[in-house]
């Protein structure tokens, strides 16, 4: 996650470097073809840069907004163990947002600009987080299904052509596997519990199943970005391929839990060895994406409130830093590393 603040000029700014736009583009395409990684200071076509900024920032926003539906249950987790786990998971989501914002910033966009896009409603985030978490079983269903779908989506991005995004994704995937397992464990406890608990688990599956499989995005026939992203090796599989993989691994898990996938048309096709679903209601997906889901307004409002309520803290920290020359009340070891002559007058 190297940053744009490094002090060499952007290659575009250098006049006459390596003979013209066409040559640069050809060299870029060849590097992609050889599966080389593109790094922040390398030349890249503007459309590649803009596509990555859009995708990485949407991904970052999704992690940040994704803290809200589950954070909603931290105070009501049914045991101390579940509570500690949920806090750790929500903190991970925050961390993942931070890795991704850093990766987006390497493309030359400021963090403040990214936050502004989220808070003023211009930026999109995963529509799944606009659904409410009505019961404790929803926390299980989110871990199992929503994190499961996210992992399926993210594993191929570990091999994305853009280095900082790929590296962020490796960290995220390593950390995310516990998220899915803890969710399944919650579902398992409910599925093995009382009749009322089983009903709760089934109800959560009923509400989260379709939104989860819609997380992979529109079907290939209508997806506008897929073809170009695959050529640039930002994406490695199409939306429909990933959706199918997810369905194939998840249906047997639901069977293990003794829960029923809410799709009367679902069947296993013996020839292709795939589970085939009934038609997906894309009008719901579009409505939620356009801001008309059950919690769109509430989620953005929560982010705006947090941002405003934290303003005085940010201002106080900045004022404190200015007063102490940006060094803060640092530990002795940091002073030693930052400057071998720590006693020098640069301290104030």
């Amino acid at each position, binding site marked *: *996650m190297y940053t744009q603040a490094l002090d*060499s000029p952007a290659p575009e700014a250098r006049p006459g470097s390596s003979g013209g736009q066409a040559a640069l583009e050809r060299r870029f395409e060849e590097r992609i073809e050889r599966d080389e990684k593109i790094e922040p200071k*390398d030349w890249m076509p503007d459309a590649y840069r803009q596509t990555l900024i859009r995708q990485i920032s949407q991904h970052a926003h999704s992690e940040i907004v994704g803290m809200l539906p589950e954070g909603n249950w931290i105070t009501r987790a049914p045991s101390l163990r579940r509570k500690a786990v949920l806090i750790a998971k929500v903190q991970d989501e925050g*961390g993942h947002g931070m890795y991704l914002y*850093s990766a987006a910033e390497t493309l030359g966009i400021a963090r403040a600009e990214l936050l502004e896009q989220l808070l003023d409603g211009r930026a999109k985030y995963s529509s799944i987080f606009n659904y409410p978490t009505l019961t404790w079983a929803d926390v299980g269903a989110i871990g199992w299904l929503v994190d499961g779908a996210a992992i399926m989506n993210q594993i191929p991005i570990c091999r994305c052509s853009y280095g900082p995004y790929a590296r962020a994704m490796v960290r995220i995937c390593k950390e995310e596997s516990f998220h899915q397992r803890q969710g399944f464990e919650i579902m398992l406890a409910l599925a093995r519990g009382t009749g009322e608990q089983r009903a709760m688990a089934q109800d959560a599956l009923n509400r989260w199943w379709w939104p989860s499989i819609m997380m992979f995005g529109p079907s290939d026939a209508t997806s506008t970005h897929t073809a170009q992203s695959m050529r640039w090796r930002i994406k490695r599989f199409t939306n429909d391929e990933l959706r199918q993989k997810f369905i194939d691994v998840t249906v047997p898990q639901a069977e293990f839990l003794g829960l029923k996938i809410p799709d009367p048309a679902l069947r296993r096709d013996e020839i292709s060895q795939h589970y085939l679903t009934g038609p997906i209601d894309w009008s719901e997906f579009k409505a939620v994406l356009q801001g008309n889901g059950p919690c769109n307004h509430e989620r953005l409002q929560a982010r705006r409130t947090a941002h405003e309520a934290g303003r005085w803290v940010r201002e106080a920290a900045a004022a404190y*830093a200015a007063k102490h020359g940006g060094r*803060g009340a640092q530990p002795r070891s940091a002073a030693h590393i930052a400057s071998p002559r720590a006693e020098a007058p640069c301290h104030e």
Partner: protein
Amino acid sequence: MSDDWPLFEVFIRARSGLEHKHVGSLHAADVRMAIEHARDVYTRRQEGVSIWVVRSSEIVASDPEEAEALFEPARDKVYRHPTFYTIPDEVKNL
């Protein structure tokens, strides 16, 4: 919207005996906060025993356009590697 806090690059020593390695970047108001944020963002699973932070603007990087001029000259100097030299099998400890 207010300006961003300065950007820091974060380096972590995974355990004693290993070097610090670049792991990512973050924003912080000052160096102390940068260390504390690095601890929260990059060491939630015992990934480190020591953290360095440095302002990103203080790092001077080589220019990718000059990569050839900088690194190409080493490519044809294979005699810098031990495998370049042929030694008879019977000669031991060499």
